[in-house]
């Protein structure tokens, strides 16, 4: 029972509890807060996997940016009190069928992965992790990197155009 194992168990437990709470809570804001726990514990798992830079990016992007943008999405739309309303679609049978299908998918993949092991490999990922990523990103993966910047620009412009008011609607007010 090494320290790494204990840390993995604790982080995995927090991640799964966050996910299950997200499914069971009734208010939308509470669901997003539950997801923040999952995101942060996933960042801890990245540190265990000697990916410190990805862990920092995970904290910044997921538990920072995406959570805030989702909270904005919740607050800019009107939510009636969800306590009386149902929060899921479909009836009992549809939900049961979905649960069975998802469980069958999980069992099938579990049979494939539960004893997958490639043995111990001497990967030197923890030494100067950010420097390794930077070197590979700007030499071997330079074209995907540039394409990602184009994608982000397109998403920025597209999001602004989609979310802004139509001209006629803006003039009415």
């Amino acid at each position, binding site marked *: 029972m090494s320290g790494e194992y204990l840390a993995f168990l604790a982080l995995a437990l927090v991640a799964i509890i966050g996910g299950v709470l997200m499914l069971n809570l009734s208010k939308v804001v509470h669901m997003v807060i539950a997801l923040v726990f999952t995101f942060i514990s996933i960042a801890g798992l990245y540190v265990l996997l000697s990916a410190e830079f990805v862990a920092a990016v995970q904290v910044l992007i997921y538990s920072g940016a995406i959570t805030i943008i989702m909270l904005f*999405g919740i607050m800019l739309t009107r939510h009636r009190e969800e306590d009386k309303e149902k929060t899921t679609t479909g009836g009992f049978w549809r939900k049961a069928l979905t649960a069975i299908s998802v469980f069958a998918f999980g069992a099938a993949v579990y049979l494939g992965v539960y*004893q997958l092991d490639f043995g111990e490999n001497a990967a030197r990922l923890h030494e100067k992790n950010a420097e390794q990523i930077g070197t590979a990103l700007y030499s071997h993966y330079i074209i995907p990197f540039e394409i990602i910047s184009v994608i982000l620009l397109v998403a920025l412009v597209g999001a602004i155009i989609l979310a802004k008011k139509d001209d006629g609607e803006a003039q009415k007010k």
Partner: protein
Amino acid sequence: MSSVPLSAYLVLALILFCIGLYGALTKRNIVVVLICIELMLNAVNINLVAFAKYGAHPGVAGQIFALFTIAVAAAEAAVGLAVLMALYRNRKTVHIDEIDSMKH
């Protein structure tokens, strides 16, 4: 060697993916469906980073793929929220089963 095996990470990612999949298929609020999709993308990222350390060919490539996935997920979340805003302005609802004008 008592380090955590690769399959433990893969099973954790599988559980998170199943939670996200079930939520995305059954939840009624569009915002919740979007964050369920984010959870599924996170599970995929755990797989990529785990294979980067314990895979057959360990290296930094898996972590770079995870970074690309995070960037695309951020773009997807922004565009999804913008679509949600446009939809809410026109239909005054955020419930996924009330937005069915393309169904008939």
